């Protein structure tokens, strides 16, 4: 079953045509990776899935995007509810200037959850889910800013997991991290797959090949190729894809 169905999407920043006729389907409990040269529209596409682009003034979208069979850009669509279903981890770690605990609890609190024990358990569960628990269990009250970059990124993942979304969007989650933290996050994606549908943007070909089931290749706002990851990396249909993967440009 497809959890995301994008149909003929065009996106504009003012006059700039950032996404051109993009259509794709994402299956439930799969990992989808987007690759492509810088500025090709990967983040733009990711951010339209949880309507983050709404925050940017003077933008326009045409086409249809269904999540769980519902048009998320319909007039009566509930944006806040959508964002609870579609969690996001940003390219740069962006914890709140609050304690580690409060960072993870934030999503629960804003959703009106009050039970102290419930929050406590969910925070622990989420931190374990993000492979951070062992490192922070003794200092949950400390500022999130005291953590290293890699730990902060895993904290942001834990924060996103705490509200148990259906879909987890990750925009280059490991781009600022060392190889050890990176492999931790990759392992994490592997385990999270059983419960979540994951869409990840990455510049790292090996990473895309390692973690994803399906890969999409963007260039200049167009989705050039979208297919099974193995096929994409071993035997792509398009020459542009081949060139990009083998590092001839981008």
């Amino acid at each position, binding site marked *: 079953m497809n959890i995301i169905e994008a149909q003929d999407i065009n996106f504009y920043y003012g006059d700039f045509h950032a996404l051109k006729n993009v259509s794709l389907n994402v299956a439930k409990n799969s990992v989808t990776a987007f690759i492509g040269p810088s500025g090709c529209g990967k983040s733009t596409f990711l951010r339209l899935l949880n309507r983050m682009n709404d925050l940017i003034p003077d933008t326009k979208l045409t086409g249809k995007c269904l999540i769980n069979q519902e048009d998320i850009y319909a007039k009566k669509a509930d944006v806040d509810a959508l964002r609870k279903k579609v969690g996001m981890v940003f390219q740069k770690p962006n914890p709140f200037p609050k304690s580690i605990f409060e960072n993870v609890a934030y*999503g629960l609190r804003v959703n009106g959850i009050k039970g102290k024990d419930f929050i406590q358990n969910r925070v622990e569960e989420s931190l374990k889910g993000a492979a951070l628990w062992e490192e922070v269990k003794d200092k949950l009250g400390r500022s999130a800013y005291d953590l290293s970059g890699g730990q902060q990124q895993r904290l942001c993942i834990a924060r996103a997991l705490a509200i148990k979304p259906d879909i987890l969007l990750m925009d280059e989650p490991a781009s600022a991290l060392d190889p050890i933290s990176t492999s931790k996050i990759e392992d994490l994606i592997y385990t999270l797959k059983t419960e979540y549908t994951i869409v990840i943007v990455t510049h790292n070909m090996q990473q895309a090949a390692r973690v994803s089931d399906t890969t999409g290749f963007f260039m200049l706002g167009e989705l050039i190729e979208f297919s099974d990851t193995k096929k994409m990396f071993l035997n792509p249909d398009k020459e542009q894809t081949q060139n990009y993967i083998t590092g001839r440009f981008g």
Partner: protein
Amino acid sequence: MRRAIERGIEMIFAASGMVTTVVILLIVAFLFKEGFGLFKSPAVEKGYALCVNADNPVEFISAADIKKIFNEEIEGWVPYRFDGDELSEKYEEEQFAGRLGEIIAETPKILAFIPEEYLPRNVKGVKILSGNTVIPKDFFLGKEWIPTATPAPQFGVLPLILGTLLVSLVAIFIATPLGIGVAIYLSELAQGRVRDILKPAIELLAGIPSVVYGFFGLVVLVPIVQRTFNLSVGETAFTGSIILAIMALPTIITVAEDAMRSTPRAMREASLALGATHWQTIYKVVIPYSISGISAAIVLGIGRAIGETMVVLMVTGNAAKMPSLFDAVRTIPATIAAELGEAPFGGVHYQALFVLGCVLFVITLFISITAELISKRQHNKGL
């Protein structure tokens, strides 16, 4: 060569920083030095002294009591005020001191107020109250401010301090919620174009001289307050507070708005991406993130309100009595501005006004420190 120039520039900056600091400290020191002579100055009018009968055990009478005795509000005293015309009917000027000595020695309960040149010095039965200075207790707790009263000027600053606090605090209670509300509107809710017009317009308001606000207050606000609250006069503490609030608003709005807008987009996005609503994002992320800027805005607003002179002088009725909200009051800055010109240089009144300046300084210092502590605590609580 390059290094030498850089070092030179560094030294210029360091020096100017130092000079500024020293100058400011000197100003404060000057204020306190001029003021604190007050508590060594005699409590009675300059050029006069008080005498009592030698059998009277009293050594000290406060300015307030002196006034009461001469107004015959305290029983058991016989106030005597020197009257040159009356004495000169029977006595030559050289005999004045002797005659006064006799009067005092004959009257056990007398309190005599006599010019220094006719003082009956070293006369048996006469005691000159030489240690009768203005004391801090009377100054800070006294309820009357009548610097030109005879025989003893009344320097009770309590009504002025309370007047200042009342007018400024009410102003801040009005201005803070409004100012922060507008700042939230501008930074979080207003459309780009509305904001682009409103923000510079509000900044412009901060630059309007206070007399203009005072004029507006006098002509427009005073009658409105009078009619709305059915008062005999519209010049009240409340009128002053409203005008001060209006004056403090532009500062509060611009500083708070700048602080809120400096919240990184990544923070807002993080919050919204977790399903928080726009409002939740504002009060759980934007406001905590900019809390030190917001409290700076409030402190600047209070600073403007407390130090403001012209406007309160114009619209608060300027009466130095114990304040109440719908009555005329007088504040410290208004008092200093109105009276410094007529106070004799170096005299008691002059010194008293300097102490008032010191009090104002201490009040503002106290408020800044409190605000600093609050914003620190808020910040730590956010963590």
